[in-house]
């Protein structure tokens, strides 16, 4: 598989945005790869990503409940990708702010699924929201609201 830096160029030049391809290439490395993020589904302005429960992602060894860090990462990626899913094109952006409410502890052993949507798009900013759940979206484990800011491509990667 190509290094993500090389693969990125093809996403920048690509006319459309395919969330499944992006997840397969860009989320296979680095932190997303470590967490084991995978593509689930997407629509016009939303996307679903997931990862499996794992012992080394636990935050409370007594109960086996996942740490919230990986859930932040998943919601960060899913909300970010929801923007490109909506615009139909990859463009460099950074997280300006992200708020997450932990509505209940995730069940040990269960995969976490994040469904995120871009609900408003401005020229330089994208407004996003997302829900993380462990099987039933009506009984979420976390709720996210955030803003992404478009940036110059040169500053985006090193």
């Amino acid at each position: 598989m190509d290094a993500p830096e090389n693969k990125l160029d093809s996403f920048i030049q690509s006319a459309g945005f395919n969330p499944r391809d992006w997840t397969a290439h860009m989320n296979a490395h680095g932190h997303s790869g470590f967490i084991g993020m995978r593509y689930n589904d997407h629509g016009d302005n939303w996307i679903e990503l997931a990862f499996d429960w794992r012992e080394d992602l636990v935050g409370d060894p007594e109960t086996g409940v996942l740490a919230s860090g990986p859930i932040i990462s998943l919601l960060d990626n899913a909300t970010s990708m929801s923007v490109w899913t909506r615009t139909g094109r990859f463009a460099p952006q950074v997280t300006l702010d992200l708020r997450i409410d932990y509505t209940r502890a995730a069940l040990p052993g269960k995969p976490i699924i994040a469904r995120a949507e871009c609900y408003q798009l401005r020229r330089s900013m994208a407004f996003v929201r997302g829900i993380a759940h462990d099987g039933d979206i009506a009984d979420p484990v976390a709720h996210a609201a955030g803003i992404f800011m478009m940036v110059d491509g040169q500053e985006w990667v090193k």
Partner: protein
Amino acid sequence: MNSTALPPYARAMGMEIAGIEDGSPLIMIDFSSRAMGRPGFFHGGVIGGVLEMAGFAALGAELERQGLDLRIKPINISTEYLRGGLPERLYARGEVVRAGRRVANVRIEAWQSDRDRPVASCWMNFQLSPKKA
């Protein structure tokens, strides 16, 4: 509190307790491929995870000072990402704004080589409850 007291996720990411400053533990993490988001930068979720760990640690230390042994559950976190996290060591430290009987409010900052140029800043609310016997 020492680094072995950190949860599995924090240890898997390579977080450590680098010391105590004015009563609040300093959490440290070195850059690694498993911490990388967009190429060459820390993942925002990792920065969030480090901020949270520093928040937990600050509150744990404060409750210990007050002689309280309570269960701590995060209610929410709101993070402002101020700068890209460069591929070098990252620190975070929390300040307990208020620790009441049921809720605690903590502010946390993360920085790299220059402490006056924070990478991210956040607030967290925690729910406090008696430990189950």
